C-alpha cells in the first residue's frame, strides 16, 4: 500500500472529500482484494469494502499515528471482513441452508464442483477450509507480505498466536492438497 502523507489524512479528517478520494485511490485495491479473499464472493467483498471506507471516513479524526496508516486500514478491513463473514454464516444457519454450512463445517474445504485445474478455484476452496482468523493470518503473510510483528499489530494478537495460526493454516492447506492429490503443476 502506498504511504499516505499525514496532511492528506488530516485534511480528509476535517471533511475534505478530495483528500479522502486520494486515500481511497491509494488503498481501495488492497482493501477490496483482502475483503474478497476473506469473504469469497464479489458482492460480499464490495459490501465489506464499502463498510471499511465508511469506518475510515468516520474515524479518521481519531487516528492517533501510533501505528502506521497501512496497519490501521488492514486492521479495520480484517475486523470488518471477519464480522461480515460471521454475520453471513449466522444468517445462512437461521435460514436453514444447512447443506452449505454442513459441507463447510464437517466435510472440510472441498465441494464437487471445484475443478482442480483452476488455480484460483483451488485457492478459494482451500481458504474456505480455514477459520477466519487463520485465513486472516495466512493472507496477510502470503498475499500482503507482512511480517509476523506487523500481523500481530494488525490483529492485536501475540506473536506466538500469529505463528501458531500460520502453522495450522499451512498444515490444513497441505493436508487438503495431499488428500485431493494436487500436484505441483498447478
Amino acid at each position: 500500500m502506498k504511504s499516505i502523507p499525514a496532511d492528506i489524512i488530516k485534511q480528509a479528517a476535517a471533511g475534505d472529500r478530495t483528500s479522502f478520494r486520494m486515500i481511497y485511490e491509494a488503498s481501495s485495491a488492497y482493501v477490496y482484494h483482502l475483503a474478497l479473499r476473506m469473504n469469497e464472493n464479489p458482492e460480499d467483498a464490495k459490501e465489506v469494502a464499502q463498510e471499511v471506507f465508511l469506518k475510515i471516513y468516520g474515524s479518521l479524526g481519531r487516528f492517533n499515528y501510533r501505528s502506521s496508516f497501512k496497519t490501521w486500514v488492514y486492521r479495520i478491513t480484517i475486523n470488518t471482513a471477519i464480522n461480515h463473514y460471521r454475520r453471513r454464516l449466522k444468517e445462512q444457519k437461521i435460514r436453514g441452508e444447512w447443506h452449505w454450512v454442513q459441507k463447510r463445517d464437517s466435510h472440510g474445504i472441498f465441494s464437487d464442483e471445484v475443478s482442480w485445474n483452476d488455480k484460483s478455484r483451488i485457492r478459494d476452496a482451500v481458504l474456505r477450509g480455514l477459520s477466519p482468523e487463520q485465513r486472516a493470518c495466512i493472507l496477510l503473510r502470503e498475499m500482503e507480505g507482512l511480517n509476523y510483528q506487523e500481523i500481530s499489530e494488525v490483529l492485536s494478537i501475540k506473536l506466538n498466536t500469529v505463528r501458531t495460526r500460520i502453522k495450522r493454516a499451512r498444515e490444513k492447506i497441505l493436508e487438503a492438497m495431499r488428500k485431493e492429490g494436487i500436484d505441483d503443476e498447478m
Partner: protein
Amino acid sequence: MMKCEKVQDFILSDYLDEQLDSKRTLAVEKHLAQCEQCRELAQEVKEKVGPLLKEERRSSPPASLWSSIEKDIEARPAKSPQRFFWVCWKPSLRPWTPQWNPLWVFVLCLMIMAGVVRYQQQVRTVNKYLTEQVDFLALISWDDPLFYYLGELSPGAWWGSLWI
C-alpha cells in the same frame, strides 16, 4: 540435533517466512541436510502453499464502489452538538496508559523521594515525643507519695481523685 517435530514446526512457520534468527536457521538447515522426511516437507510447503496463495495482480474494486461510498457519506446525518460533546470527551474517558518518557520518569522519581523524606521527618517527630514521655515516666519514683496515696484509695475514690 533438533528433533523432527520442532523442525517441522519451524518449516511451517518461521523458517519458511525467514523469521528465525541465524542460530536457529543454521540448526534447521543442519537438520534438513541429514533428514530426508523434513527436507521433503520443506520442499512441499515451498512449492505448493506459497505459489497457491501469491497472486500476480490484485482484483480491482468495482467502479460503483466509490459512488456507493459517496452516497452513504452524504446520507449520513450531520454531527449534532451532543455527538460533538461525546467525541470531545470520549478520549478523556479512556483509561490512562503511562507514557514512559524520561521527563515523566524523572518527575515521578522526585515525587517519590520527596514523599520518603517527608515520611522520615514525621517518624522522627513521633519518636522524639515518645522518648520524652518515656523519660518523664522513668523519672517518677514508685515511692512517690502521689503513687502511695493512689494505691491506698478504693477504686471509686481513685477515679474520683483523677477527676479532681
